[in-house]
């Protein structure tokens, strides 16, 4: 290679960096920047009226799991936080499972319609995205409240004798999140099922497989990438959900998102809020790594 050519390659590499500079700038400012600030804040002291005092402190991280007993000055487990973590993970997990149980038949139904009808059904799935999340959540509240649609119907058909007390419970949050995140499960599942070769069903049926065998041994393994994508898309935002638990949990049944908001608001403990945010990030990352491991593990031997 001549020196001139080498120069040219170096030049084009430089130009490449220059061309990607705007993207790098946006990424730095929008993604890395806030993360660095939060990381910094989590190691500082809380100010009296919010904000932070620029003194190094591990108090923020410590108070995630332990609180100082005001009488004895000793550290005890922060039960409230642990409860909230557990509720967040449990509800997000349940939401993911239930969204799959409802979303899979839905996606299958849509994918097996004729092309024209398919577009219509997909359109219906996306309609909720047009409405503000807050309004949709209040609508769910309206459905599940004591004199709401759900209770009225259940009473009418005689399934229950007195209204179910759903409002401000974990169940309410679970119902709300399942409703809100369901489309995020249906769409990737649809994409996967749409690519599925329906002729394989006949092949399976011909080779003595029962319907259940076909679902378990043929359909589910083949549409697995869609299941994983849908599960991530539902689980991750569920874990950080704020509006849904706020409205349907009524501030009593908090999730991590609400706890974080509390620290930056009334709690006036920004370092704790920052540390909690990073904890949420860690949980999500751990969950994603696990999903990826499951996905790849299947690929290499399956």
């Amino acid at each position: 290679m001549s020196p001139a050519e080498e120069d040219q390659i170096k030049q084009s590499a430089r130009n490449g960096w220059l061309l990607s500079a705007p993207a790098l700038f946006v990424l730095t400012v929008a993604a890395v920047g806030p993360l660095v600030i939060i990381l910094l804040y989590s190691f500082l002291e809380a100010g009296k009226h919010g904000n932070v005092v620029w003194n190094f402190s591990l108090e923020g991280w410590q108070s995630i799991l332990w609180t100082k007993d005001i009488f004895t000055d000793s550290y005890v487990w922060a039960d409230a936080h642990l409860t909230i973590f557990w509720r967040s993970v449990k509800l997000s997990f349940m939401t993911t499972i239930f969204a799959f149980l409802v979303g899979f038949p839905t996606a299958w139904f849509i994918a097996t319609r004729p092309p024209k009808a398919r577009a219509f059904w997909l359109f219906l799935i996306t309609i909720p995205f047009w409405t503000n999340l807050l309004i949709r959540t209040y609508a769910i509240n309206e459905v599940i409240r004591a004199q709401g649609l759900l209770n009225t119907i259940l009473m009418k058909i005689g399934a229950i004798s007195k209204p179910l007390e759903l409002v401000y419970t974990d169940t309410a949050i679970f119902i709300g999140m399942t409703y809100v995140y369901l489309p995020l499960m249906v769409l990737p599942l649809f994409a996967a099922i749409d690519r599925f070769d329906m002729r394989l069903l006949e092949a399976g049926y011909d080779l003595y497989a029962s319907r259940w065998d076909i679902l378990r041994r043929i359909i589910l393994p083949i549409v697995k990438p869609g299941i994983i994508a849908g599960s991530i898309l539902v689980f991750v935002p569920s874990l950080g959900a704020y509006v849904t638990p706020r409205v349907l949990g009524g501030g009593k049944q908090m999730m991590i998102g609400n706890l974080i908001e509390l620290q930056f608001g009334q709690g006036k403990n920004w370092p704790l809020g920052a540390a909690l945010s990073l904890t949420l990030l860690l949980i999500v990352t751990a969950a994603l790594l696990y999903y990826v491991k499951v996905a790849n593990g299947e690929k290499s031997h399956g």
Partner: protein
Amino acid sequence: MTTQNAIEARNVVKAFGQGDTAVRALDDVSVEIRQGEFFTLLGPSGCGKTTLLRLIAGFEMPTDGVILLEGQDITYLPPNKRPVNTVFQSYALFPHLTVAQNISFGLEMLGKPRGEIKQTTERMLALVKLEEMASRKTSQLSGGQQQRVALARALAPQPKVLLLDEPLSALDLKLRQAMQIELKRLQTETGITFVFVTHDQEEALTMSDRIGVMSAGKLQQVGSAKDIYTRPVNRFVASFIGETNFLQAQAQGNKARLSSGDVVDLDAAATGAVTLTIRPEQIRLADPADADALPATVTNLVYFGTDTHVHLALADSTEVVVRQQSPSTGDSGVVMGQKVGLRFAPGAAQVVGD
């Protein structure tokens, strides 16, 4: 010993749609497929051959009629309860499984013991010569190899009947010819009854013990390749299998007078207006001076390598095609416009129905 039929279809009707718009894909089809034979359903697309195959497989239920498997009524049995397996046109191999897993799938679903599954799978891999590919994904195989996996997968559970739905149509000519021989070998080795569906007459003629020719939802003729080629029952069969000439004639006993006024001999007696079929290779060119040769004029010559098709016009300009071996180099053969005589081989002119 009376040998039972592997498959018997009795008066099978399959209609798609309802009322006036209903289409009869199968219109009163009855056929007996013998144990251990290579039976081919041959016909143009839309003739109902695939529908009949799907009825035997159990993917469709007939509107009317009965299907028997070794004498037992299986008409309404679901596919997973029939000891019948299919090789699909698209192969429909399971993309998430390896070659060996594809082959063992049916055996696993039947709940066979592990040892037997392993043994049978290995035997099948050897049968289709894919031992080396056992742990490959099916997407890493060539078309011909995928075809063999599909065969092994369908043969592994040792079905009473193997159904093959145009399995060779996706392969190129060379591979297709090799697979034809392979299929015949597999059928002989396993002794399983094969029901093969194709629109390719050459495929049907080379592999089958017997052929069922279908058209418009009806079975037109069943017989050996030779039967069907030499004694077609009607115009459709005669024209679908091989090439032929149709001549209108007035028959009287064993003689028939063509529209050109020439008289030809018939194999069987007939009377009235008939259609005759004469295969192009059953006609010879002769000297025009020959007294009992039909006078004709060469109108066209089409060269096919080993053969040449000579198009001729009879006295009333009825067209007749004669197939000849191409003349060796230097030999000029016939030329356009040349007057020649035609001689029909004994029994060449057959009366066919419409």
